[in-house]
């Protein structure tokens, strides 16, 4: 019973996570290349990808390391970039919260932008799944995303400078995120939330330490919730 449906949920997750490989691969590779170019050893570069496992925060830390910023500023800035993870954690809790603590620990470690976005999309599309099916799906999505994150960081670190910078790899992540936004705009409330968040993000981009992202994220959430209540939109 449960084991069979969990297995099929897992493989459904693998299938849905697989295309992200096209994005995660180049991005991890880019991190590996840039980190070694910044003077990090291969094992230090791998340390980042395995211990931190958060692309945008890793790039932020790398950038600030290059600028010889103070240790505390580097930590605070990269964690600020990652504050959205707390929002992901809160957002996925209604779905994965009933799991035993150790499974919640595993889910927390692998909760990155892509696994979150794909899993929450699926939880909302198929609300009748059991908790173990949702967890199996999450692990499925994670499989072609997180282990390749380590592997391609390693390949990037080894390959070093042999990747031409003109290839536009820096834009792989924005493309992936932009592709996810369209399908999320299901109701007018979602569209209002996204619009408010874009306006706030651009207006507050001058704030130091990526605080603009946090202002925009919070503002967008409030805009969406308010729109839902005032326009009487069914969630």
């Amino acid at each position: 019973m449960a084991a069979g449906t969990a297995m099929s949920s897992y493989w459904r997750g693998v299938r849905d996570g697989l295309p992200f490989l096209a994005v995660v691969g180049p991005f991890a590779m880019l991190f590996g290349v840039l980190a070694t170019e910044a003077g990090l050893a291969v094992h230090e570069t791998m340390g980042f990808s395995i211990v931190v496992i958060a692309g945008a925060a890793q790039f932020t830390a790398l950038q600030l390391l290059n600028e010889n910023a103070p240790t505390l500023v580097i930590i605070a800035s990269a964690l600020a970039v990652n504050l959205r993870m707390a929002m992901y954690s809160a957002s996925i809790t209604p779905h994965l919260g009933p799991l035993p603590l150790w499974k919640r620990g595993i889910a927390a470690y692998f909760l990155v932008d892509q696994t979150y976005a794909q899993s929450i999309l699926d939880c909302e599309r198929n609300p009748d799944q059991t908790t173990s099916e949702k967890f199996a799906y999450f692990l499925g999505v994670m499989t072609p995303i997180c282990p390749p994150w380590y592997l391609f960081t390693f390949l990037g670190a080894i390959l070093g400078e042999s990747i031409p910078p003109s290839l536009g790899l820096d834009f792989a992540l924005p493309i992936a995120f932009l592709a996810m936004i369209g399908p999320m705009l299901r109701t007018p409330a979602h569209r209002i939330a996204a619009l408010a968040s874009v306006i706030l993000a651009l207006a507050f981009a001058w704030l130091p330490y990526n605080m603009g992202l946090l202002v925009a994220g919070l503002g967008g959430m409030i805009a969406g919730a308010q729109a839902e209540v005032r326009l009487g939109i069914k969630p």
Partner: protein
Amino acid sequence: MTDTTQLWIIIIALGLGSFGLRFAFLGLVGDRAMPEWVLRHLRYTAVAVIPALVAPLVLWPTATGGEPDPTRLAAAIATFTVGYLTKNVFAAMGVGATVLVSLSLML
């Protein structure tokens, strides 16, 4: 550029901090029911954070030192439009990547 101890302090602090943020609600709240107003806000987390993350990167790409770039802008518009119209994440990624690569090669 930096000494090894400082680097590992940063890596470990970021690792613990990131895990803490990811575990915050999932680990501590568990299956206790959350109030409706919290859930109502959480419904819009993804749609509020991801556009905010991406908007400055589209207008002011890091690779060009923050200068708006027609190639990246065109790829961004194509990706979003295909995603919005087809509701297909991977069709959008494919079209976006194709536009990005072909314009980069042409320009």
